[in-house]
Protein backbone atom coordinates (compact mmCIF):
# COMPACT_ATOMS: atom_id res chain seq x y z
CA UNK A 1 0.00 0.00 0.00
CA UNK A 2 1.34 3.43 -0.93
CA UNK A 3 1.31 6.63 1.07
CA UNK A 4 0.29 10.12 -0.10
CA UNK A 5 1.20 13.08 2.10
CA UNK A 6 -1.37 15.87 2.42
CA UNK A 7 -0.23 18.67 4.68
CA UNK A 8 0.86 16.80 7.82
CA UNK A 9 -1.17 13.68 7.18
CA UNK A 10 -0.15 10.37 5.66
CA UNK A 11 -2.96 8.77 3.65
CA UNK A 12 -3.01 5.19 2.44
CA UNK A 13 -3.78 4.66 -1.24
CA UNK A 14 -3.94 1.49 -3.32
CA UNK A 15 -1.62 0.72 -6.21
CA UNK A 16 -3.75 2.85 -8.53
CA UNK A 17 -3.78 5.81 -6.15
CA UNK A 18 -7.33 5.39 -4.78
CA UNK A 19 -7.86 6.51 -1.20
CA UNK A 20 -8.17 3.55 1.16
CA UNK A 21 -9.93 5.42 3.96
CA UNK A 22 -12.57 7.56 2.25
CA UNK A 23 -13.60 9.16 5.55
CA UNK A 24 -10.25 10.98 5.59
CA UNK A 25 -11.06 12.82 2.37
CA UNK A 26 -11.33 16.59 2.36
CA UNK A 27 -10.76 19.36 -0.15
CA UNK A 28 -7.03 19.38 0.50
CA UNK A 29 -6.89 15.69 -0.39
CA UNK A 30 -8.77 16.36 -3.61
CA UNK A 31 -6.40 19.17 -4.52
CA UNK A 32 -3.36 16.98 -3.90
CA UNK A 33 -4.78 14.04 -5.87
CA UNK A 34 -5.58 16.43 -8.74
CA UNK A 35 -2.02 17.74 -8.68
CA UNK A 36 -0.58 14.24 -8.65
CA UNK A 37 -2.61 12.90 -11.58
CA UNK A 38 -2.09 15.95 -13.78
CA UNK A 39 -5.63 17.32 -13.54
CA UNK A 40 -4.14 20.50 -12.10
CA UNK A 41 -5.91 23.22 -10.19
CA UNK A 42 -9.54 22.45 -9.43
CA UNK A 43 -12.08 25.01 -10.62
CA UNK A 44 -15.82 25.44 -9.97
CA UNK A 45 -16.82 22.87 -12.59
CA UNK A 46 -14.48 20.32 -11.07
CA UNK A 47 -15.97 20.92 -7.63
CA UNK A 48 -19.51 20.70 -8.94
CA UNK A 49 -18.79 17.22 -10.22
CA UNK A 50 -16.72 16.15 -7.21
CA UNK A 51 -19.53 17.18 -4.86
CA UNK A 52 -22.10 15.38 -6.99
CA UNK A 53 -19.99 12.20 -6.99
CA UNK A 54 -19.51 12.32 -3.22
CA UNK A 55 -23.19 12.96 -2.59
CA UNK A 56 -24.21 10.08 -4.82
CA UNK A 57 -21.70 7.79 -3.20
CA UNK A 58 -22.80 8.70 0.33
CA UNK A 59 -26.41 7.95 -0.59
CA UNK A 60 -25.88 4.73 -2.51
CA UNK A 61 -22.38 3.36 -1.78
CA UNK A 62 -21.80 3.45 -5.52
CA UNK A 63 -20.15 5.75 -8.01
CA UNK A 64 -22.64 7.48 -10.32
CA UNK A 65 -22.87 6.37 -13.94
CA UNK A 66 -20.90 8.33 -16.49
CA UNK A 67 -24.18 9.24 -18.17
CA UNK A 68 -25.46 10.80 -14.98
CA UNK A 69 -22.20 12.74 -14.57
CA UNK A 70 -22.66 14.20 -18.03
CA UNK A 71 -26.31 14.96 -17.39
CA UNK A 72 -25.61 16.57 -14.02
CA UNK A 73 -22.81 18.73 -15.35
CA UNK A 74 -24.27 19.47 -18.75
CA UNK A 75 -20.94 18.39 -20.22
CA UNK A 76 -20.35 16.12 -23.15
CA UNK A 77 -18.14 13.16 -22.36
CA UNK A 78 -15.29 14.64 -24.36
CA UNK A 79 -15.51 17.79 -22.22
CA UNK A 80 -15.57 15.68 -19.08
CA UNK A 81 -12.30 14.09 -20.21
CA UNK A 82 -10.88 17.54 -20.82
CA UNK A 83 -11.82 18.47 -17.25
CA UNK A 84 -10.53 15.20 -15.78
CA UNK A 85 -7.93 13.85 -18.24
CA UNK A 86 -7.78 10.51 -16.42
CA UNK A 87 -11.48 10.03 -17.06
CA UNK A 88 -14.56 9.68 -14.88
CA UNK A 89 -13.38 6.70 -12.80
CA UNK A 90 -9.60 7.01 -12.58
CA UNK A 91 -9.84 10.80 -12.50
CA UNK A 92 -13.00 12.30 -11.09
CA UNK A 93 -13.93 9.47 -8.70
CA UNK A 94 -10.38 9.13 -7.44
CA UNK A 95 -10.11 12.85 -6.74
CA UNK A 96 -13.50 12.68 -5.02
CA UNK A 97 -12.00 10.13 -2.63
CA UNK A 98 -14.03 7.11 -3.68
CA UNK A 99 -12.56 3.62 -3.49
CA UNK A 100 -11.56 2.10 -6.80
CA UNK A 101 -14.74 1.24 -8.73
CA UNK A 102 -15.30 -2.45 -9.42
CA UNK A 103 -14.79 -3.48 -12.99
CA UNK A 104 -13.32 -6.29 -14.97
CA UNK A 105 -9.70 -5.19 -14.93
Amino acid at each position, binding site marked *: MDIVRVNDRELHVDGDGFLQEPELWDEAVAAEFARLDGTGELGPKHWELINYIRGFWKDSDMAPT*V*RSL*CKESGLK*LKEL*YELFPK*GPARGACKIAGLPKPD*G*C*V
Partner: protein
Amino acid sequence: MDGLIYLDNSATSFPKPQVVYDFMKEFYQSHGVSPGRSGFDKALEAEEVVHSTRKLLTELFNGTDPNHLTFSYNATDSLNRIIQGMISKGDHVITSNLEHNSVLRPLYHRKHEGDIDVTYVPFDTRGYIDPDDVKRAFRKNTRLVIINHSSNIIGTVQPVAEIGRYCREAGIYFAVDASQSAGAVPIDVKAMNIDLLAFTGHKCLMGPTGIGGSYVGENVPIKCTIFGGTGVRSAHPFHLDEFPYRMEAGTLNTVGVAGLYAGVKWVLGEGIDNIHSHEMRLWDKLRRGVQAIDGVTTYCADDTENQNPVLSLNIDGWLAGDAGTMLDVDHNIATRTGLQCAPLVHVHLGTDKLHGTVRFSVGPFNTEAEIDTAVEAVREIASMKK
Protein backbone atom coordinates in the same frame (compact mmCIF):
# COMPACT_ATOMS: atom_id res chain seq x y z
CA MET B 1 -32.25 1.97 -23.02
CA ASP B 2 -33.61 3.07 -26.37
CA GLY B 3 -31.39 2.63 -29.38
CA LEU B 4 -28.70 0.67 -27.57
CA ILE B 5 -26.40 -1.20 -29.92
CA TYR B 6 -25.63 -4.32 -27.94
CA LEU B 7 -22.28 -5.84 -28.85
CA ASP B 8 -21.60 -7.73 -25.62
CA ASN B 9 -23.08 -11.06 -26.60
CA SER B 10 -20.07 -12.99 -25.30
CA ALA B 11 -21.02 -11.87 -21.80
CA THR B 12 -24.62 -12.88 -22.36
CA SER B 13 -26.74 -12.88 -25.47
CA PHE B 14 -29.28 -10.08 -25.47
CA PRO B 15 -32.06 -9.79 -26.27
CA LYS B 16 -33.33 -13.35 -26.14
CA PRO B 17 -35.76 -14.57 -28.77
CA GLN B 18 -39.30 -13.57 -27.82
CA VAL B 19 -40.30 -17.24 -27.59
CA VAL B 20 -37.87 -17.65 -24.68
CA TYR B 21 -39.52 -14.89 -22.65
CA ASP B 22 -42.98 -16.17 -23.55
CA PHE B 23 -42.24 -19.81 -22.77
CA MET B 24 -40.61 -19.05 -19.43
CA LYS B 25 -43.53 -16.91 -18.32
CA GLU B 26 -46.11 -19.45 -19.42
CA PHE B 27 -44.18 -22.39 -17.97
CA TYR B 28 -43.54 -20.81 -14.59
CA GLN B 29 -47.11 -19.65 -14.23
CA SER B 30 -48.54 -23.03 -15.18
CA HIS B 31 -45.83 -25.46 -14.00
CA GLY B 32 -43.73 -23.68 -11.38
CA VAL B 33 -43.71 -26.73 -9.09
CA SER B 34 -40.88 -28.99 -7.96
CA PRO B 35 -40.22 -31.18 -10.99
CA GLY B 36 -40.94 -34.86 -10.59
CA ARG B 37 -40.38 -35.17 -6.91
CA SER B 38 -43.86 -34.79 -5.55
CA GLY B 39 -45.45 -37.28 -7.91
CA PHE B 40 -48.61 -35.38 -8.75
CA ASP B 41 -49.42 -34.83 -12.39
CA LYS B 42 -48.27 -31.22 -12.55
CA ALA B 43 -44.89 -32.17 -11.05
CA LEU B 44 -44.52 -34.98 -13.57
CA GLU B 45 -45.34 -32.58 -16.40
CA ALA B 46 -42.66 -30.19 -15.14
CA GLU B 47 -40.22 -33.10 -15.04
CA GLU B 48 -41.08 -33.83 -18.66
CA VAL B 49 -39.74 -30.42 -19.67
CA VAL B 50 -36.56 -31.04 -17.65
CA HIS B 51 -36.01 -34.44 -19.25
CA SER B 52 -36.90 -33.13 -22.72
CA THR B 53 -34.20 -30.48 -22.27
CA ARG B 54 -31.69 -33.15 -21.23
CA LYS B 55 -32.57 -35.08 -24.40
CA LEU B 56 -32.42 -32.01 -26.62
CA LEU B 57 -28.96 -31.04 -25.40
CA THR B 58 -27.70 -34.62 -25.46
CA GLU B 59 -28.69 -34.79 -29.13
CA LEU B 60 -27.12 -31.38 -29.80
CA PHE B 61 -23.79 -32.60 -28.41
CA ASN B 62 -24.22 -36.12 -29.86
CA GLY B 63 -24.10 -37.72 -26.45
CA THR B 64 -25.65 -41.06 -25.61
CA ASP B 65 -27.49 -40.97 -22.31
CA PRO B 66 -29.67 -37.93 -21.46
CA ASN B 67 -29.20 -38.63 -17.75
CA HIS B 68 -25.53 -37.75 -18.18
CA LEU B 69 -26.60 -34.28 -19.31
CA THR B 70 -26.89 -32.52 -15.99
CA PHE B 71 -27.76 -28.99 -14.95
CA SER B 72 -25.97 -26.42 -12.84
CA TYR B 73 -26.05 -22.65 -12.35
CA ASN B 74 -23.67 -21.85 -15.19
CA ALA B 75 -20.48 -23.01 -16.89
CA THR B 76 -18.33 -21.91 -13.96
CA ASP B 77 -20.37 -24.11 -11.66
CA SER B 78 -20.04 -27.09 -14.00
CA LEU B 79 -16.32 -26.53 -14.53
CA ASN B 80 -15.79 -26.50 -10.79
CA ARG B 81 -17.71 -29.78 -10.45
CA ILE B 82 -15.65 -31.26 -13.28
CA ILE B 83 -12.28 -30.10 -11.98
CA GLN B 84 -12.93 -30.99 -8.35
CA GLY B 85 -14.57 -34.26 -9.34
CA MET B 86 -11.79 -35.43 -11.62
CA ILE B 87 -8.52 -34.50 -9.98
CA SER B 88 -6.82 -35.82 -6.88
CA LYS B 89 -3.65 -35.04 -4.98
CA GLY B 90 -0.59 -35.79 -7.09
CA ASP B 91 -2.31 -35.31 -10.44
CA HIS B 92 -1.02 -33.24 -13.34
CA VAL B 93 -3.44 -31.11 -15.37
CA ILE B 94 -2.88 -29.52 -18.77
CA THR B 95 -4.74 -26.39 -19.74
CA SER B 96 -4.02 -23.29 -21.85
CA ASN B 97 -3.35 -19.58 -21.73
CA LEU B 98 -6.76 -19.05 -23.35
CA GLU B 99 -8.71 -20.11 -20.29
CA HIS B 100 -11.28 -18.13 -18.41
CA ASN B 101 -10.97 -17.74 -14.65
CA SER B 102 -13.65 -20.41 -14.32
CA VAL B 103 -10.87 -22.88 -15.15
CA LEU B 104 -7.81 -20.93 -14.02
CA ARG B 105 -8.98 -20.21 -10.49
CA PRO B 106 -10.09 -23.72 -9.48
CA LEU B 107 -6.74 -24.98 -10.77
CA TYR B 108 -4.77 -22.19 -9.04
CA HIS B 109 -6.42 -23.06 -5.75
CA ARG B 110 -5.64 -26.75 -6.00
CA LYS B 111 -2.09 -26.00 -7.09
CA HIS B 112 -1.65 -23.49 -4.27
CA GLU B 113 -2.78 -26.15 -1.80
CA GLY B 114 -0.02 -28.38 -3.12
CA ASP B 115 -2.39 -30.94 -4.60
CA ILE B 116 -1.62 -30.76 -8.29
CA ASP B 117 0.74 -29.50 -10.93
CA VAL B 118 -0.52 -27.56 -13.94
CA THR B 119 0.94 -26.95 -17.41
CA TYR B 120 -0.32 -23.98 -19.43
CA VAL B 121 -0.07 -24.47 -23.19
CA PRO B 122 0.41 -21.23 -25.18
CA PHE B 123 -1.44 -20.11 -28.30
CA ASP B 124 0.20 -18.99 -31.52
CA THR B 125 0.15 -15.52 -33.10
CA ARG B 126 -3.19 -16.30 -34.77
CA GLY B 127 -4.76 -17.40 -31.51
CA TYR B 128 -4.68 -21.19 -31.81
CA ILE B 129 -3.31 -23.93 -29.60
CA ASP B 130 -1.09 -26.50 -31.29
CA PRO B 131 -2.42 -29.97 -30.37
CA ASP B 132 1.16 -31.23 -30.47
CA ASP B 133 2.04 -28.81 -27.66
CA VAL B 134 -0.66 -30.48 -25.60
CA LYS B 135 0.68 -33.91 -26.47
CA ARG B 136 4.23 -32.88 -25.61
CA ALA B 137 3.02 -31.81 -22.15
CA PHE B 138 1.65 -35.28 -21.32
CA ARG B 139 3.16 -36.86 -18.22
CA LYS B 140 2.65 -40.22 -16.57
CA ASN B 141 0.47 -38.58 -13.93
CA THR B 142 -1.53 -36.36 -16.31
CA ARG B 143 -5.12 -36.89 -15.29
CA LEU B 144 -6.99 -34.19 -17.18
CA VAL B 145 -6.64 -31.89 -20.16
CA ILE B 146 -9.08 -28.99 -20.02
CA ILE B 147 -9.30 -26.59 -22.94
CA ASN B 148 -11.42 -23.55 -23.81
CA HIS B 149 -13.18 -24.44 -27.07
CA SER B 150 -13.62 -20.81 -28.09
CA SER B 151 -11.88 -17.85 -26.50
CA ASN B 152 -14.11 -15.20 -24.95
CA ILE B 153 -11.53 -12.55 -25.90
CA ILE B 154 -10.28 -13.38 -29.38
CA GLY B 155 -12.98 -15.81 -30.52
CA THR B 156 -10.67 -18.40 -32.02
CA VAL B 157 -12.12 -21.93 -32.09
CA GLN B 158 -9.60 -24.49 -30.95
CA PRO B 159 -8.84 -27.84 -32.65
CA VAL B 160 -10.49 -29.89 -29.91
CA ALA B 161 -10.99 -32.95 -32.10
CA GLU B 162 -7.22 -33.36 -32.55
CA ILE B 163 -6.54 -32.67 -28.90
CA GLY B 164 -9.27 -35.15 -27.95
CA ARG B 165 -7.74 -37.82 -30.16
CA TYR B 166 -4.35 -37.40 -28.51
CA CYS B 167 -5.93 -37.57 -25.07
CA ARG B 168 -7.93 -40.69 -25.89
CA GLU B 169 -4.82 -42.43 -27.29
CA ALA B 170 -2.95 -41.59 -24.08
CA GLY B 171 -5.80 -42.56 -21.76
CA ILE B 172 -6.10 -39.01 -20.39
CA TYR B 173 -9.51 -37.51 -19.69
CA PHE B 174 -10.42 -34.54 -21.88
CA ALA B 175 -12.67 -31.72 -20.72
CA VAL B 176 -13.89 -28.84 -22.89
CA ASP B 177 -15.18 -25.46 -21.75
CA ALA B 178 -17.91 -24.78 -24.30
CA SER B 179 -19.15 -21.55 -22.73
CA GLN B 180 -18.67 -19.61 -25.96
CA SER B 181 -19.16 -22.45 -28.43
CA ALA B 182 -22.24 -24.43 -27.38
CA GLY B 183 -24.91 -23.35 -29.83
CA ALA B 184 -22.40 -21.47 -31.97
CA VAL B 185 -20.41 -24.24 -33.65
CA PRO B 186 -20.98 -27.99 -33.91
CA ILE B 187 -19.94 -30.06 -30.91
CA ASP B 188 -19.79 -33.83 -31.15
CA VAL B 189 -18.55 -35.40 -27.94
CA LYS B 190 -18.08 -38.78 -29.63
CA ALA B 191 -16.22 -37.64 -32.72
CA MET B 192 -14.15 -35.15 -30.70
CA ASN B 193 -13.40 -37.64 -27.91
CA ILE B 194 -14.68 -35.20 -25.31
CA ASP B 195 -15.12 -36.88 -21.94
CA LEU B 196 -16.53 -33.89 -20.10
CA LEU B 197 -18.25 -30.88 -21.63
CA ALA B 198 -19.29 -27.78 -19.68
CA PHE B 199 -21.72 -25.27 -21.15
CA THR B 200 -23.77 -22.29 -20.12
CA GLY B 201 -27.34 -21.65 -21.14
CA HIS B 202 -27.37 -17.88 -21.45
CA LYS B 203 -24.98 -17.27 -24.32
CA CYS B 204 -25.25 -18.93 -27.73
CA LEU B 205 -27.96 -21.34 -26.53
CA MET B 206 -30.13 -18.24 -25.97
CA GLY B 207 -31.51 -19.26 -22.58
CA PRO B 208 -31.61 -17.15 -19.43
CA THR B 209 -28.85 -16.60 -16.90
CA GLY B 210 -28.68 -19.01 -13.97
CA ILE B 211 -28.74 -22.23 -15.97
CA GLY B 212 -25.83 -24.23 -17.34
CA GLY B 213 -24.68 -27.79 -17.26
CA SER B 214 -22.36 -30.51 -18.37
CA TYR B 215 -22.29 -33.72 -20.33
CA VAL B 216 -20.15 -36.43 -18.75
CA GLY B 217 -19.21 -39.49 -20.76
CA GLU B 218 -20.61 -42.84 -19.70
CA ASN B 219 -17.34 -44.31 -18.41
CA VAL B 220 -15.83 -41.21 -16.86
CA PRO B 221 -15.12 -41.78 -13.13
CA ILE B 222 -16.10 -38.34 -11.90
CA LYS B 223 -16.57 -38.00 -8.16
CA CYS B 224 -19.63 -36.38 -6.68
CA THR B 225 -18.73 -33.00 -5.18
CA ILE B 226 -22.18 -31.70 -4.27
CA PHE B 227 -24.38 -33.56 -1.82
CA GLY B 228 -27.98 -33.16 -0.75
CA GLY B 229 -31.53 -33.76 -1.81
CA THR B 230 -32.27 -35.83 -4.89
CA GLY B 231 -36.00 -36.34 -4.45
CA VAL B 232 -35.59 -40.11 -4.59
CA ARG B 233 -34.30 -42.76 -2.10
CA SER B 234 -34.20 -40.22 0.67
CA ALA B 235 -33.43 -42.83 3.35
CA HIS B 236 -30.03 -43.50 1.78
CA PRO B 237 -27.37 -41.78 3.88
CA PHE B 238 -25.08 -40.94 0.98
CA HIS B 239 -25.65 -38.94 -2.16
CA LEU B 240 -26.73 -41.13 -5.06
CA ASP B 241 -24.01 -42.28 -7.40
CA GLU B 242 -26.08 -42.66 -10.55
CA PHE B 243 -26.66 -39.91 -13.08
CA PRO B 244 -28.10 -37.32 -13.12
CA TYR B 245 -27.95 -37.28 -9.31
CA ARG B 246 -24.16 -37.64 -9.15
CA MET B 247 -23.89 -34.14 -10.64
CA GLU B 248 -27.00 -32.50 -9.20
CA ALA B 249 -28.38 -31.80 -5.73
CA GLY B 250 -31.34 -29.75 -4.61
CA THR B 251 -34.28 -28.40 -6.56
CA LEU B 252 -33.38 -27.48 -10.11
CA ASN B 253 -33.83 -24.04 -11.62
CA THR B 254 -36.81 -25.30 -13.57
CA VAL B 255 -37.79 -21.98 -15.08
CA GLY B 256 -34.17 -21.65 -16.23
CA VAL B 257 -34.32 -25.11 -17.75
CA ALA B 258 -37.57 -24.16 -19.49
CA GLY B 259 -35.97 -21.01 -20.89
CA LEU B 260 -33.00 -23.03 -22.04
CA TYR B 261 -35.36 -25.50 -23.73
CA ALA B 262 -37.03 -22.67 -25.63
CA GLY B 263 -33.67 -21.12 -26.48
CA VAL B 264 -32.20 -24.33 -27.88
CA LYS B 265 -35.38 -24.97 -29.85
CA TRP B 266 -35.07 -21.48 -31.33
CA VAL B 267 -31.39 -21.99 -32.21
CA LEU B 268 -32.14 -25.32 -33.90
CA GLY B 269 -35.10 -23.81 -35.73
CA GLU B 270 -33.00 -20.96 -37.10
CA GLY B 271 -30.07 -23.29 -37.76
CA ILE B 272 -26.71 -23.05 -36.02
CA ASP B 273 -24.96 -22.63 -39.37
CA ASN B 274 -27.32 -19.86 -40.45
CA ILE B 275 -26.88 -17.93 -37.21
CA HIS B 276 -23.12 -18.38 -37.33
CA SER B 277 -22.95 -17.24 -40.98
CA HIS B 278 -24.94 -14.10 -40.18
CA GLU B 279 -22.79 -13.27 -37.18
CA MET B 280 -19.52 -13.94 -38.98
CA ARG B 281 -20.55 -11.76 -41.92
CA LEU B 282 -21.09 -8.91 -39.47
CA TRP B 283 -17.87 -9.77 -37.59
CA ASP B 284 -15.92 -9.63 -40.85
CA LYS B 285 -17.45 -6.27 -41.73
CA LEU B 286 -16.55 -4.95 -38.29
CA ARG B 287 -13.03 -6.38 -38.50
CA ARG B 288 -12.32 -4.91 -41.92
CA GLY B 289 -13.84 -1.61 -40.90
CA VAL B 290 -11.80 -1.09 -37.75
CA GLN B 291 -8.59 -2.53 -39.20
CA ALA B 292 -8.69 0.24 -41.81
CA ILE B 293 -8.65 2.92 -39.11
CA ASP B 294 -5.29 4.44 -38.25
CA GLY B 295 -4.42 3.81 -34.61
CA VAL B 296 -6.57 0.73 -34.11
CA THR B 297 -4.96 -2.59 -33.16
CA THR B 298 -6.95 -5.83 -33.36
CA TYR B 299 -5.84 -9.11 -31.84
CA CYS B 300 -5.76 -12.52 -33.53
CA ALA B 301 -8.38 -11.51 -36.08
CA ASP B 302 -6.94 -12.75 -39.34
CA ASP B 303 -9.81 -14.52 -41.05
CA THR B 304 -13.23 -16.05 -40.54
CA GLU B 305 -12.18 -19.70 -40.42
CA ASN B 306 -12.39 -21.41 -37.02
CA GLN B 307 -13.57 -18.18 -35.54
CA ASN B 308 -16.50 -17.00 -33.47
CA PRO B 309 -17.78 -13.43 -33.79
CA VAL B 310 -15.65 -11.89 -31.04
CA LEU B 311 -13.24 -9.02 -31.79
CA SER B 312 -10.84 -7.42 -29.34
CA LEU B 313 -9.12 -4.14 -30.11
CA ASN B 314 -7.35 -1.16 -28.68
CA ILE B 315 -7.23 2.44 -29.86
CA ASP B 316 -3.97 4.37 -29.64
CA GLY B 317 -3.98 6.91 -26.83
CA TRP B 318 -6.93 5.38 -25.01
CA LEU B 319 -7.02 2.88 -22.20
CA ALA B 320 -9.53 0.17 -23.02
CA GLY B 321 -11.91 1.21 -20.26
CA ASP B 322 -11.97 4.82 -21.42
CA ALA B 323 -12.60 3.82 -25.03
CA GLY B 324 -15.45 1.62 -23.82
CA THR B 325 -16.88 4.53 -21.85
CA MET B 326 -16.79 6.70 -24.97
CA LEU B 327 -18.55 3.99 -26.96
CA ASP B 328 -21.18 3.62 -24.27
CA VAL B 329 -21.96 7.20 -23.36
CA ASP B 330 -21.35 9.04 -26.62
CA HIS B 331 -22.40 6.32 -29.08
CA ASN B 332 -24.79 4.10 -27.11
CA ILE B 333 -22.76 1.00 -27.94
CA ALA B 334 -22.36 -1.68 -25.27
CA THR B 335 -19.05 -3.54 -25.31
CA ARG B 336 -16.93 -5.25 -22.68
CA THR B 337 -13.64 -3.73 -21.63
CA GLY B 338 -10.80 -4.85 -19.38
CA LEU B 339 -9.39 -8.32 -18.93
CA GLN B 340 -12.72 -10.10 -19.52
CA CYS B 341 -11.93 -12.64 -16.75
CA ALA B 342 -9.23 -14.30 -18.84
CA PRO B 343 -6.01 -12.63 -17.65
CA LEU B 344 -3.49 -15.02 -19.21
CA VAL B 345 -4.74 -14.13 -22.70
CA HIS B 346 -3.88 -10.50 -22.01
CA VAL B 347 -0.49 -11.32 -20.50
CA HIS B 348 0.20 -13.40 -23.60
CA LEU B 349 -0.88 -10.56 -25.93
CA GLY B 350 0.74 -7.82 -23.81
CA THR B 351 -2.62 -6.07 -23.46
CA ASP B 352 -2.57 -6.41 -19.67
CA LYS B 353 -0.42 -3.25 -19.72
CA LEU B 354 -3.24 -1.39 -21.50
CA HIS B 355 -5.84 -2.51 -18.95
CA GLY B 356 -7.07 -5.10 -21.45
CA THR B 357 -9.01 -4.56 -24.62
CA VAL B 358 -12.34 -3.34 -25.91
CA ARG B 359 -14.27 -6.44 -26.89
CA PHE B 360 -17.04 -6.42 -29.47
CA SER B 361 -19.13 -9.60 -29.66
CA VAL B 362 -21.82 -10.01 -32.28
CA GLY B 363 -25.12 -11.77 -31.72
CA PRO B 364 -27.93 -13.07 -33.89
CA PHE B 365 -29.98 -9.88 -33.66
CA ASN B 366 -27.25 -7.44 -34.68
CA THR B 367 -27.55 -5.72 -38.05
CA GLU B 368 -25.23 -4.33 -40.72
CA ALA B 369 -26.36 -0.81 -39.85
CA GLU B 370 -25.28 -1.35 -36.24
CA ILE B 371 -21.86 -2.53 -37.38
CA ASP B 372 -21.52 0.55 -39.61
CA THR B 373 -22.31 2.73 -36.59
CA ALA B 374 -19.77 0.87 -34.45
CA VAL B 375 -17.01 1.31 -37.04
CA GLU B 376 -17.74 5.03 -37.29
CA ALA B 377 -17.72 5.32 -33.51
CA VAL B 378 -14.29 3.71 -33.31
CA ARG B 379 -13.10 6.03 -36.09
CA GLU B 380 -14.32 9.08 -34.19
CA ILE B 381 -12.72 7.98 -30.92
CA ALA B 382 -9.42 7.22 -32.69
CA SER B 383 -9.45 10.68 -34.33
CA MET B 384 -9.82 12.44 -30.96
CA LYS B 385 -6.30 11.49 -29.92
CA LYS B 386 -4.55 12.64 -33.08
